[in-house]
């Protein structure tokens, strides 16, 4: 990846530097916060309204984002380490697992929710065979129901039938 470092890196790579992306996102968030804060009463320095402090923060964020993006674009950034690379498989599996848990817990109860979370999230490593994942899911579902439901007495029905 780093064999074309001689001379100025191509524009596309400079635009894809994490600092440029991060700075641009910060600028956008800052502007959005300023816009939203502008819809609340600003007040004066002596009697600040609800919009005053967020407006200051939004402006600060927008300025800092611009600085970060500009310096990263002109000066470049050191190449990242291997662990900086995105792992889409893990990202999707873990988030989908959490989503399944949030969706199933109120509708189906604790045991289905935990089992679904574990089955889906376990796919993120790409190293667990289906049967092992199933066993892990079953074990964790029963265990968490025993610990949190029976042991600590939390309001967590094992199975729920709410529409």
């Amino acid at each position: 990846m780093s064999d074309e470092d001689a001379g100025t890196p191509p524009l596309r790579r400079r635009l894809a530097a994490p600092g440029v992306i991060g700075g641009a996102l910060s600028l956008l968030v800052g502007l959005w916060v300023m816009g939203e804060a502008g819809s609340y009463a600003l007040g004066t320095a002596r009697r600040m309204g609800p919009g005053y402090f967020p407006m200051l923060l939004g402006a600060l964020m927008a300025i800092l984002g611009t600085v970060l993006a500009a310096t990263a674009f002109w000066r470049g950034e050191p190449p990242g380490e291997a662990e900086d690379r995105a792992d889409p498989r893990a990202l999707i599996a873990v988030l989908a697992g959490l989503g399944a848990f949030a969706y199933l817990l109120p509708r189906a109860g604790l045991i289905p929710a935990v089992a679904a979370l574990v089955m889906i999230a376990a796919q993120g490593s790409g190293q667990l065979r289906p049967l092992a994942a199933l066993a892990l899911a079953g074990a964790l579902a029963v265990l968490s129901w025993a610990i949190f439901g029976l042991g600590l007495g939390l309001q967590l029905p094992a199975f729920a039938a709410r529409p």
Partner: protein
Amino acid sequence: MDLFANLALGFHTAVSPAALFFCFLGVTLGTLIGVLPGIGAMAAIAMLLPVTYHIPPTEALIMLAGIYYGAQYGGSTASILLRLPGTPQAAVVTLDGYPMAQQGRAGVALFITTIASFAGSVLGVLLLAGFAPLLARAAMSFQAAEYFALMVLGLMAAALLTQGSPVRGLIMVAAGLILGTVGTDLQTGTFRFVYGIPELADGIGLVAMAMGLFGVSEVIANAARGGAPAARRPRWREMIPTRADWRAAIPAMTRGAGIGAGFGTLPGTGSSIASFVSYAVEKRIARDPSRFGKGAIEGISAPEAANNAAAQTAFIPTLTLGVPGDAVLALMLGALIIHGIIPGPGLIAQQPALFWGLVASFVLGNLMLLVLNLPLIGLWISILRIPYRLLYPAILVFICIGVFSIRNSAFDIWLVLIFGAIGYGMRLLRFEPAPLLLGFILGPLLEQYLRRAMTVSRGDPMIFLERPISAAFLGLAALLLLHSLYTALRRRG
């Protein structure tokens, strides 16, 4: 003397069976998560916050604190044996600890880091017991302007004194402050950034946010990591350092502990920076700096003493001023506030059993950690072999149930999901989540003090410079900013 009466009260609190149990639980869990790479003290404390809703505040704090300083001990184990830092603070220990292990001196390295951790902690606890009450008395005169300036200093330190880029740190603080404004404005009742979502009217849940940013993003980043290769358990005989080791290690521990204590006391700066700075100092003052990176014993003694000293002294600003020493303590501050205890100069006087009980539990906890980390080191080494692919689904289950149990709300799990995604994105773009969390927790207070000070001064911002203590804090913050600007510009040339 007063101190002895106070300590007697503290030990009376700390040796009750419940307190001892939670102290032991805390330091054991701390060591465990410290040893295991891919889960830090931050995530562990976030995971256990819901549990602390069900126990009294003193025991809750003793347990959470135990996790925090216990993790500082455990972090070096995987650094030395596998070159995988168990915690960010222990990253610097890999530099000389792993070469020592390759030279067959892993046992000595593990022994010395434990002793250094203990030495640093002892200094930290002594400073906490001696210095915190004095600081609290001095802070009695603080008004809105002083608190505002102090919080600005803490946030600046958190943003600028990190390993990463200072601009990124400042962006994270700003983002945290913005997230802190979500919810109902206390003075006018206006909804801010709520967008019609009723669950957001009380603001974003601290636990859900912290679990997403720290726990879930760590899990995603580590999911594909294979199990750690098996490490051999050193024999007891191999752990004893030679006389030459001691001669090099003891002065380094002393310097490290001093540096760590300084950084810990400063609000906003954590133990990571203390361990990196103390390593740099050792390397600079060494007669032969080329030994560093090849198994120099000073290179593991000083940082370990530093991060443990910082972990203990970080409680000084947290408990006496209400301004957290670092992001983990910000989370603990949040836990205290949940229990209805507002940390500040009045805390030691109003809650003597809590404060001195905590101090005494630190003494007991550190003694427990000596036992956990020396005779029982083999246990932790075998736990290192548990493959992460089996561990992380269990971590996620714990996170989900913990978050849900706070207010029986599935919405909070969606929040965890969103912040997990944001946290992972931040990680890829090299943003540190710690300053964000500090900003989030201090944000509402900062705004309140700003408004109050400006009302007092009739809208004149000079109030912050006319009051000497506030001006001193802001001056320090400005110095920090200038310093990091200077370093950033010099790096260019």
